């Protein structure tokens, strides 16, 4: 099954999303900050990354930029998750190279649809 890396600092959200993704049959690995997220993305080569943007210290935008500039990880689709429903966030997500974008609170069915779309495109599923 595809492996999804969930980078999320909020324990509740991390727990909730990972539980639901596991229920859907995905293998989920988690990271609670940007640095850890970057490290796990490089080490475990997940099939897709769900990236919370509001992370302490190194934020989601920075992690995404780092991963997208690395030849080893630039192929991993990244979905940005942010509490901001602002147009500027959508632009920012595109600028840094996110493959998709969704707002919190997550509408799970929509998110899974986006995940599946990206994984299909990548040829994983």
């Amino acid at each position, binding site marked *: 099954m595809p492996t999804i890396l969930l980078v999320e600092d*909020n324990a*509740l*959200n991390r727990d*909730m*999303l990972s*539980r*639901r993704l596991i*229920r859907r049959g995905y293998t989920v690995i988690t990271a609670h900050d940007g640095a850890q997220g970057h490290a796990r993305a490089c080490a475990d080569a997940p099939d897709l990354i769900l990236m919370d943007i509001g992370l302490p210290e190194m934020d989601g935008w920075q992690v995404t930029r780092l991963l*997208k500039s690395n030849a080893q990880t*630039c*192929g991993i*689709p*990244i979905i940005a998750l942010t*509490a*901001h*429903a602002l*147009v500027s966030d*959508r*632009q920012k*997500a*595109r*600028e840094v*190279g*996110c*493959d*998709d*974008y*969704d*707002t*919190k*609170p*997550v*509408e*799970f069915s*929509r998110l899974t649809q*986006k995940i599946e*779309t*990206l994984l*299909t*495109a*990548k*040829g994983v599923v």
Partner: protein
Amino acid sequence: MNLRNLSIKRKLTLLAMLTSSIAVVLSSASFLIYDLVTFRNLLSQDLMTEAEIVAYNSAAAMAFNDEASANVQLSALTAKSDLVAAVLYGADGRIFAKYYRSGTPTPELPAPVEGKSYRYTGHYMEVFNDVSLRGERLGTLFLQSDMTRWNTRARQYASILAIFVLISGLIAWFVSSRLQGLVSGPILELEQTMRAVSVQKNYAVRAVKTSGDETGRLIDGFNTMLAEIQHRDKALQRANGDLKTRTQELEDEIVHRKGMQEELLKAKDAAEEASRAKSAFLANMSHELRTPLNAIIGYSEILEEETRDQGQPENVRDLRRIQAAGKHLLSLINDVLDLSKIEAGKMTLHPETFAVAPMVEEMITTLQPAAERNANQLVLRMPDDLGSMYADITKVRQILFNLISNACKFTEHGTVTLDVERREGVEDRLFFRVSDTGIGMTPHQQSNLFQYFTQADSSTARKYGGTGLGLAISQRFTHMMSGEIHVASVSGEGSVFTLELPAKVPLDAGELAQAPLAQEPAQDAAGPGGDATTVLVIDDDPSVRDLMTRFLGKMGYIAVPAPSGPEGLRLARELRPGIITLDVVMPDMSGWDVLNELKADPELASIPVIMITIVDHEALGLARGASNYLMKPIDRDRLAVALDKYSTRPEQVPDMALDYSGSL
């Protein structure tokens, strides 16, 4: 000296003197002439009488031819001092006797004239008289007298006259110089007064009137004028005073108002700061609220799934209620966020061109569940040729979503109809009419409909839920796009909401977003190679080239970037690409020039060219041979469709357009 410039005093004196002198001279001259004529006649009478006497006395001497006696007779004339000559002529004309006054040259004697006669010859008076005795003419007496007496008299008279004229002239001068004051005095007085007035500007002065004649009336007139001027001067001064007072008042008012203005500005700044703080607070609160909501909704969903698996359907209903409440809270937060952006003036438009029909159909599909919840039928009526419009599609969707979901909410077992119509009159406009057969509204309820936090009435919120922000936000969005929302409703029968929008939303710089280029993420999900179509991307903007290259790569095309027109043309000749995308605005060679050159080259003319630009000249582009025309920011779907149309390899990666609508 010019007479006209003489003073009036002198003129008057001169006038009087001249007039009286002329009168005196004329009358004296006529008297003199009369006197001299009379005197001369007297002299001639006297001489003729003398001649008769001498002739009579000489008659005997002539009759006896007594020459001596005759001479004696004549010499008696010596007593007459003015008698120059006396001559007795014989009847034959010879001189019989003669007398000449001593000391005078011998005069030339005239020929004797018969009868009694006299004449004047120059300086002399001459008389002829017959000398006869008893009726027999014996000869002629000739007397010649000079005019000494007459001349003396004339001289005397002339002297007297001259003295008289002189004296009368002096008297006239004296009198007239005294009398002219009567006339000139008031005039001079008037002139002096006038000068005083004009020099001192003292309008209180008055000229003194001394007579009732024309001068008097002149003075009266002048005084009246002065009074009038004085009156006006006073009025003017009063007005000036008033004006100064008013000016001062105005200045005070200005100072006062400036102070007020500064205070107001400070107050405004403070209010704006407070408003910004409020907006920031609302925005912060909004997404601070999202985190716990995330958990609430998420966990209730998990619980719902798990509960269902465990076979406890009664809990599922409660969990659904929790989710519904959470989602309602979420929509409320989103509305508040929209509201705070509208209030802060940060709500911007992102207009783009889109086809109306697919948007409307998608809307109806999305809202089908909402209609079914109250057992409503959702009907869509629209013509086939709706075409496209240029507007902020997200906001149009949000408005329609709001109107239709409202209609569904307030209607049970009824029909909600969306009619779409395009009217190309003076202005090309689109009408979206949402009509329902629901509870309707009273006129009073309708009047408050578009106010924030207002629903038809306060009980509505309890019964039907909702934030009361939806319609207000919809109306603000509509106004931003230069449109209108109208409502018509009958309580108990239903409502009709009409959204009217211009087919092309006018661009207002203040409300427009800065048209960011739709940038897409890099992805090496290249499609199968080999037979992929080559797309030449000609654009001077590196970010656009980058974006297009990635996007095209993802779509399965082989993208070749060209940074300029000439480079693009070179690559086009070298590679013969399947499709060319061409930016219009480029520095050294514009897209139009590139297009012209491409179309002029027979080997390149057949390559489809998609113009991509921020300038909307679609007709021009198509006329010049472009195959398609897209506006920036690039709409991925439309680009995909356009590429697909011209490419030989239609295989496409599933569409992954960013979906933002879900959270609204």
